[in-house]
């Protein structure tokens, strides 16, 4: 894992910690672990999306408004990479 990925994951974890209402430590959860299984509700995932938009100065377009896009740290990172480089 390169430094950029680590830095992005750290920012994602920080947002998850504040908004996802996970039943476990957002800084300890695996990058591919299912966040819904870890306690994130659909409403909490909206908060996560809004916080990501604020932190990365982006807006999630319709085609990324999918349950799976917010299902894990790696899935969020993948969506962000599409938006940040766009």
């Amino acid at each position, binding site marked *: 894992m390169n430094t950029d990925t680590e830095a992005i994951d750290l920012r994602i974890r920080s947002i998850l910690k504040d908004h996802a209402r996970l039943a476990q430590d957002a800084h300890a959860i695996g990058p591919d672990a299912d966040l819904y299984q870890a306690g994130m509700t659909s*409403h909490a995932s909206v908060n996560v999306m809004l*916080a990501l938009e604020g932190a990365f100065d982006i807006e999630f377009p319709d085609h990324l408004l*999918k349950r799976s896009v917010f299902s894990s740290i790696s899935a969020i990172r993948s969506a962000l990479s599409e938006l940040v480089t766009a």
Partner: protein
Amino acid sequence: MSQPTTGRSLANELAERVPAKAAARLCVGIDLVEITQISNSLARFGQRFMSRLFTPAELAYASASPPLMAERLAARFAAKEAALKAFDMAESGIDWRDIEVVKREDGSCTLALHRKAARVAHEIGVSDIGLSLSHDGLYAAAVVTALPALPPHL
């Protein structure tokens, strides 16, 4: 004197009156929302939370009574999530504002679908949608139902 109808023969009689293959599968979705979580989102994200999830008409109705705003938005958010479940649209890329709770003049609520949400529902044969909203104390809930005209994926 006619013979009493046995359970068996009644079942046979009814079976003859029902099409051999059901033409539709009931769509149903439910969602439960903690109202204080909506209040928290309003406090944290304010206008962005409201304008991203709700239509101008939904916001106008909810904000018409400030003490009831959070529970009205909670019920509407629950309706949107229930519709995503009922019509299996969670992976379709649907804007929340394209699933709209419309208040009728008689006070009842109905669900209006727009853009991609309307297209997806049309594709699975949904026309008439049932909506039921409820809130009590800390929670708001919604149930969405529909009986598609055609079985999905045909």
